[in-house]
């Protein structure tokens, strides 16, 4: 028998794991040659997953690009109805959350359990804060009937003068009714994109809670940082999506051209 590609060594088949005595970590999977290989496979896999995420959001970004060009006045007016302070604050919150996450990865790498747990908790808190702000924004849209669907109302864009409490909108010129209808497309994209983004945040927070629990057990501060690292990639990706959503959705027309 060719030794390189042995086939019928039934006697030692059951001890295949035995070949890897040099591996110390319990999380090492038997089918990887080395832990290095496992770690790199993991991060490569994560990156590939993020590629699919790019394409997933990509479809919506294209829809946005298209309709923004077609219905610019509607998009501009509708965008002005969004709350910039809240959006900007949320951007800052999310960046902070990402910063904490990055520190968390560092903490795991230098094996500081306490720092890791704290940074992960901070990441979670900022993530939740983001969702909290989002909740208030959504609620405002709901009250103004800006949720696309049967209850959608364009009155704010046809008659902005009736809304002195929204200075940005109040200052707008009224939209023609047919154009005002198109604000629904804006709001649909707004909800679809930010909603999808928020969904990713929620999933991320769920994972974070799980990671915190394991980190607290010390799972990730013994040299096994892959889960933290890969989750970090995911979390940062979600941040990046928001970095684009914020200017594209909130800041279309804050510099009235009249």
């Amino acid at each position, binding site marked *: 028998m060719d030794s390189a590609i042995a086939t019928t060594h*039934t006697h030692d088949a059951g001890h295949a794991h035995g070949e890897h005595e040099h591996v110390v970590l319990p999380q090492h999977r038997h*089918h990887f040659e080395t832990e290095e290989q496992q770690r790199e496979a993991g991060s490569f896999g994560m990156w590939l997953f993020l590629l699919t995420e790019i394409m997933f959001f990509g479809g919506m970004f294209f829809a946005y690009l298209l*309709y923004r060009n077609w219905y610019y006045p509607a998009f501009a007016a509708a965008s002005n109805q969004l709350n910039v302070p809240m959006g900007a604050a949320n951007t800052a919150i999310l960046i902070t959350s990402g910063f904490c996450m990055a520190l968390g990865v560092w903490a795991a790498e230098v094996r500081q359990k306490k720092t890791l747990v704290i940074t992960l908790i901070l990441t979670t808190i900022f993530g939740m804060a983001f969702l909290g702000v989002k909740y208030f924004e959504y609620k405002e849209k709901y009250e103004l009937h800006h949720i696309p669907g*049967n209850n959608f109302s364009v009155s704010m864009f046809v008659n902005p003068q009736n809304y002195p409490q929204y200075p940005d909108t109040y200052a707008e010129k009224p939209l023609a009714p047919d154009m005002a209808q198109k604000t629904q497309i804006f709001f649909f994209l707004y909800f679809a994109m930010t909603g999808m983004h928020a969904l990713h945040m929620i999933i991320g927070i769920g994972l974070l809670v799980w990671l915190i629990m394991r980190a607290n057990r010390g799972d990730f501060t013994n040299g096994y940082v892959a889960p933290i690292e890969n989750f970090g990639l995911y979390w940062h990706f979600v941040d990046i999506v928001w970095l684009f959503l914020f200017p594209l959705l909130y800041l279309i027309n804050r510099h009235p051209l009249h």
Partner: protein
Amino acid sequence: MSAQTIVSLPDQSTAKMPKRHYINNEHGLLSWLLTGDHKRIAILYLISITFFFFIGGAFAALIRLELLTPQSDLVAADTYNKFFTMHGIVMIFLFLVPSVPATLGNFLIPIMLGAKDLAFPKINLLSWYLYLAGGTLTLTALVLGGVDTGWTFTTPLSTHYLNTHVLTTGMAIFIAGFSSIFTGLNFIVTIHRMRAPGMTWFRMPLFVWSHYAASLLMVLGTPVLAIAIVLVALERVFGIGVFDPTKGGDPLLFQHLFWFYSHPAVYIMILPGMGVISEVISTFSRKRVFGYSAVAFSSVAIALFGFFVWEHHMFIMGVSNYSALVFSLLTMLVAVPSAIKVFNWSFTLQKGSITFETPMLYAFAFIGLFTIGGLTGVFLGALGMDIHLTETYFIVAHFHYVMVGGMLMAFLAGVHFWWPKMTGRMYPESLSKLSAVTSFIGFNLTFMPQFILGYLGMPRRYAAYPQEYQVLNVLSTAGATVLGVGFLLPLLYLGWSLKYGAIAGNNPWQATGLEWQIQSPPLTENFVETPIMDHEAYDYEWLANKTKHEVTTVG
């Protein structure tokens, strides 16, 4: 069995079933349902896609039965519409897309690379469960009353005008899509990271190359389908109008997003099959694949160009003339790498030492039928020609030629080829040859008349059609019956062979791939020791040396 078949090969006569292998390694249903072993997952996939193939096939049978007569007398038009929708959805998303990759690819890629498993066994299992969830949802939609969008979900029809189970089916496809994404992701990582020592890129079997290319398409294309479906679902639920012209949306936007996936998807559906053909042709002509690197690169080229041609499905749907021009040109370019492959396979035969086992017969069928199917694709890619042919039976014939004549034949070639490896037993050779010939004849009888029908103008998705098309339709239905038999036979004799088939031995075909150097069926961990690859793929001289060496040491 004739003299040229495998039984006379040295390995075979002395072969015994190994005592331990991945099938009897653990027992009990749970050991299968919770397995991380890529081979077991492959078998799970094999069973489930076979199930869905026959569901899809049953719908095909119903379609053909209805089309026997010009009137819609077997079923009403709306039922017929549900038939072809189910047929298309089941066949594409639940059968053909996972067919070769999720079964053969799953089983073989780690072994071919000399690895113990795919990079992420749990994700692999997850992807099977996602597939199953998608399949179950599809069946749910079916049981609840079906869906009649056609597999293309054209908006605004699917969003505003149909009140069938579009949401359920959409969700099913969404989920099944993620199954496909994860499979692709797993393959890419495995191919990059898990190759055995010495297994350089250009020593990989072409099967792996073609799966690599297909995986790229799965990872990058499928999410666009997912988002398109999400938008359709949201539009249905909330009644907003991203795709609705009366509300300012553009229905063509959906088409762009859908075909951005679904054109690459057709290459997801053919590339793995091409990989199978490379292995089979090489093995049974005992010769290195002609122009290995050209075949490898053409796979990647198909994948790359595959992203640039989707609009050819929308030529007359109202896209701009100029962009139609661009996409028509690119369509012509994407056809070239396929031609390269076909000629390379043909020339692999030259100066070979050819035998005609069943997989080889299927491979010949593949080459012939894929050539016809592919070249008729060129008809459709030519702008002016497409005007007349689009949405007629010419298209139906085109895609069945590439999908059934191409991929399904390749799938069967692969299943027969690797059956001894997967189960440790041979299939019955003469019966399988009979079924290969039957399905070849039946196939042509079914779909050749459809080319003529298409040029005559018979539109697709018609429950009833004008009288004068009947003759050709009857021929087609007759052919489908033969074809159905041709596809049922393997189910029967492969099942039979599980128990009664001859013991296969390690390498019944005297093939060179790594998978043939280990026992059949393989051990759970594939290799006892990490193999070291010190030769090119398809190195028959290496194999001859090795065999000689074994004979001298053993004997």
